[in-house]
């Protein structure tokens, strides 16, 4: 491969793509590999959140993303895309879901259509890494609650205060500099200096 294939145009994926595919050991070779992935993609579209081994999920993720992005790009009137959907979705009612549910859901999104999480692996159990693969906007409760919004955590309280102090100091510095400049430029305008400092001090008062 020395030259990009120009016969096709594909939208950029919003996920990190491995440079090479995984072979996902299969007796039927590449065809069997695709069948394996078709099952996963079908399950993903059907259940919207699935738990499975990491490698297979990571491989299937790209296919699912491309399938959705193609569906968004071409719509359901495009024969080749329909053929694709027919191939990738083993249960045919899901073709309908793809075009009528998922396409409107993701039409205006700027981020990837799927999410993937590393899942803990059972111990003792099979050694392989596990993961959770889900479509964005699924009806299930979120897996990783976002804790970064809690501003009452101790370090956030400390940082908040540090930030306020930093801003105050910065403003004071700025005011001083401005005052110095105005003094240098026109030494006969001391009236301006308190004016610039005034709001800053008044700001300080309520905080303290």
């Amino acid at each position, binding site marked *: 491969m020395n030259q990009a294939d120009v016969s096709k145009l594909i939208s950029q994926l919003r996920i990190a793509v491995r440079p090479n595919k995984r072979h996902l050991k299969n007796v039927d070779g590449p065809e069997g590999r695709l069948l394996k992935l078709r099952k996963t993609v079908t399950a993903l579209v059907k259940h919207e959140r699935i738990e499975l081994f990491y490698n297979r999920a990571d491989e299937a993720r790209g296919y699912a993303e491309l399938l959705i992005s193609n569906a968004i790009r071409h719509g359901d009137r495009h024969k080749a895309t329909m053929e*694709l959907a027919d191939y990738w979705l083993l249960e045919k009612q899901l073709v309908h879901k793809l075009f009528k549910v998922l396409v409107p859901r993701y039409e205006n999104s700027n981020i990837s259509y799927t999410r993937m999480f590393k899942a803990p692996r059972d111990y003792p159990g099979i050694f392989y890494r596990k993961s959770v693969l889900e479509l964005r906007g699924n009806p299930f409760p979120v897996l990783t609650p976002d804790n970064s919004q809690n501003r009452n955590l101790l370090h956030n309280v400390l940082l908040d205060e540090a930030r306020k102090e930093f801003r105050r100091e910065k403003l004071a510095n700025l005011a001083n500099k401005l005052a110095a400049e105005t003094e240098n430029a026109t030494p006969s305008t001391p009236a301006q200096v308190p004016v610039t400092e005034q709001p800053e001090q008044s700001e300080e008062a309520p905080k303290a």
Partner: protein
Amino acid sequence: MNINVRILTKSVAQQYAFKRIVTFSTKPTQQAAAAAVPQQQEVTGSTVRRPIVPAHYRFVYPEFLPDPKVEWRNTIREKLERLDMLDRRRQIELPEFYVGSILAVTSSDPHAAGKTSRFVGICIHRERCGLRARFILRNVIDHQGIEVVYELYDPTIQKVEVLRLEKRLDDSLFYLRDALPEYSTFDENMEVESLEEGAPVPVNDIKVVLRPRPWLERWERQNLLGVANIEQYIKDKHRKSSEKAQKPWEKYDLMKQYRATIPEEEQKEIFAEVHTELHTLELQRKRNKRKRTFVKPKHLA
């Protein structure tokens, strides 16, 4: 723009799709092409800062797209390479051509100082990208088949003329090596067959006749469209083995296709960078051509 106009019609646009492969992008190409034209008119009307890149640029300048292998990519390198390519293109006219077009390449010959060598032939293959882009010309001279590999950006190349701009049914024509010699015989003193401005690049649907076996490659496995008599020489065992070698699932292997292409967003970025430069060069070339056509009748008169 003329170039845009010629891919407007639906029938024409289909010619861009290589028939061997089912394409999933024919429609947006048309859409983009259709969209490009009115926008282009807007450009002429009002001043839009971002140049709108015609959709067919990826076919005309495929070497501007980098190698899709992720491990080898680097944006700075690609940018420097593109700058060098543009610098070279400013020195020499490198016209639009495709596999199947007939070219004449004039290059300065280090083995005969002060002289140039001119080779006429059909382009049977185009490969590699960036400054490494190259193509293979084939011709039969004095009943002797000859092939020469040229690098597109080699600074010893003095002139690249397109004698006949056309495409063939396949995207590489190595089977001409096993075809009867008349299919790759071209007159060295061929006149330039100028295409109507704005006309689509015609597809030559000639089917070549192969010589009997032994062949250099197993053509029966490659689903060639431009070969007439392949059925004549294959037996059941060939048919069976060729059936076995087919990979019908590959047209559904989306990730494989993704890894072999440059995504549309990146293509746009790349061509937006070089588009203005290439466009001015194209215009310049057209002006030169017109001048030449004006000059000719004067000589005759």
